[in-house]
């Protein structure tokens, strides 16, 4: 039995603590150590680091390259048509006398833009949809997930083509008539259509992953504990759900980039990708198809670049997934 005289309670023990005394201490150390550990795992992964290096080099190539080149991507140099690779044109020129190196740089820029923007769109829509579905639960969850099932079973590539054909004309009209959308004009309605389609269709995979994570985390004891301690919904989301999902989310989004670039290349092959004279790596390769037997060099550079980009992003995404989510590691 403890007598009250044995319990030495000092006056200051009864004072309330500073508002964020425990919160900051607890969560910060955990977050830093998690990211640090993930970073160390990533650094140790030689394949992932090589891919990262390749990605950075390609970024540099496409970001700085065009301003260093004496030509512009749409400039037709008369007398220099159909040139094989040489010192003046390292990648050669095309039928209209445009320098292929600059076009490849611009094309890389476009392909990377497509990849990254699509990934961001998917990430945002997918995580919002998935977390709402998982957190609210019940009937709402059921209906939302049936919608996902339906969208999931849609063969995306086919619907991309259909949607693209439909929105192409109104979109071009909208872009040319609205002054503040003018900058988009150069990009061509094709690219914007791809983003819209990505926003419409590709988020379902992400939404499923997020919902699964949310449901799993909702059952975790420490979340229940935090709830019992009076943590609110937004606190739970910010401090428990997001840090726990983020690894898988980033990795999935990362793997979305090569898939979007792949899709863009496929659409360009069908002739409905970016509009000329703008170039993407996909449109450059598919343009080169027609002259394959006489001028194979036109194919080689953009094809090698696009394959390299997709490969690097795939390998880096794999590495990132392993680093951020060691539980999911499958090898």
């Amino acid at each position, binding site marked *: 039995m403890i007598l009250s005289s044995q319990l030495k309670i000092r006056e200051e023990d009864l004072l309330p603590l500073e508002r964020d005394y425990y919160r900051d201490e607890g969560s910060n150390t955990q977050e830093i150590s998690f990211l640090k550990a993930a970073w160390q795992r990533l650094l140790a992964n030689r394949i992932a680091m090589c891919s990262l290096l390749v990605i950075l080099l390609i970024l540099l190539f496409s970001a700085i390259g065009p301003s260093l080149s004496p030509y512009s991507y749409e400039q037709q140099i008369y007398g220099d048509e159909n040139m094989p690779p040489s010192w003046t044109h390292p990648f050669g020129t095309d039928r209209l006398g445009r320098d292929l190196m600059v076009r490849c740089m611009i094309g890389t820029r476009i392909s990377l833009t497509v990849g990254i923007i699509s990934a961001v769109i998917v990430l945002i829509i997918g995580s919002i949809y998935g977390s709402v579905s998982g957190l609210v639960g019940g009937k709402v969850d059921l209906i939302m997930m049936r919608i996902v099932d*339906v969208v999931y079973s*849609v063969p995306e590539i*086919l619907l991309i083509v259909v949607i693209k054909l439909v929105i192409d*004309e109104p979109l071009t009209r909208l872009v040319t008539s609205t002054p503040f959308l003018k900058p988009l004009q150069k990009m061509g309605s094709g690219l914007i259509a791809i983003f819209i389609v990505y926003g419409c269709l590709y988020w379902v995979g992400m939404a499923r992953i997020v919902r699964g994570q949310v449901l799993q985390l909702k059952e975790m004891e420490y979340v229940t504990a935090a709830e019992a301690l009076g943590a609110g919904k937004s606190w739970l989301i910010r401090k428990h759900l997001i840090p726990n999902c983020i690894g898988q989310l980033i990795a999935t989004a990362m793997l979305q980039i090569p898939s979007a670039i792949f899709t863009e290349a496929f659409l360009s*092959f069908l002739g*409905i990708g970016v509009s000329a004279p703008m170039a993407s790596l996909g449109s450059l390769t598919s343009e080169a198809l027609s002259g394959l037997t006489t001028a194979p060099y036109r*194919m080689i550079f953009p*094809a090698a670049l696009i394959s390299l980009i997709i490969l690097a992003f795939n390998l880096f995404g794999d590495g990132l997934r392993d680093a951020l989510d060691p539980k999911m590691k*499958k090898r």
Partner: protein
Amino acid sequence: MAEKIIRRVLLAAFSLFVIISITFFLMNLIPGDPFMSEKATEESRAVLIAKYGLDQPLLVQYGKYLAGLFHGDMGTSYVLQKGRAISTIVTDAFAVSVKLGIRALLLAVLLGVPLGCVAGFFKDKLPDGILRVTSAIGISVPGYVIAAVLMLVFAVKLRILPVSYGRPMGEIMPIVTLAVYPACYLTRLTRASILEVLGQDYLKTERAKGMSELVVIFIHALKNSLVPIITYLGPLTASILTGGFVAESVFNVPGLGRYFVNAISARDYTLIMGVTIFYAALIIFMNLLCDILYQVVDPRIKIG
């Protein structure tokens, strides 16, 4: 289980219905009509529009289209093969695509699954490294690049294979083009799946019984790692179909994929729609089949 399967079938039917509706209304949103490009007078255009029933309210057209679909009637082509029924175009062309697709599918499975097992068997050793790199490259190269490279090497430089389909051995290049991506994907999938199964206790028992490692991997581990591979069969069909767009138009195969590509460039809307719906139905059916098969193979899995 029966109830779950019925629910799954209903969901598939509903998905298909949604896709048909979306495609129908999207197609009708496209400004203009299919006869705009023709040098027709106003009157003859009006006659054509009336003939195809395009002057009726959209909902009536939709009802008619749905009713037609039930009888396998998807209308007629407006541009590419004027007046020919879409359903006959689709079935004729699909017969060609299936001949290529099935062989590509077999090639992909027969290459990908054993290679994945080999990679798992030699984990972190040289064969595994080689297979991992090649399969990573294989899933990173766009299909038409593979087609172009094959063509350049075997048809133009070495001259051992014919450029286009229809001549002897003309199928080889399109089949290989179709099989590369799924074969590489299957290699990675099988490897990952087998490595996961390898850690399990019942395999330790097998080894303790003195089974050779080969028997353990190829007979006991493979059986249980088949589950993710079966799930992939649905997307695999889809990927061979979309791969077909590329392979068939590069090698001039008169299959459904080439029709789709041509229909897009000719803006032959009824044909695009017919092919889309046909493909969607096929893919949905394959996914359904996989889901059910999935449960038969592994009773632990519940379908939702």
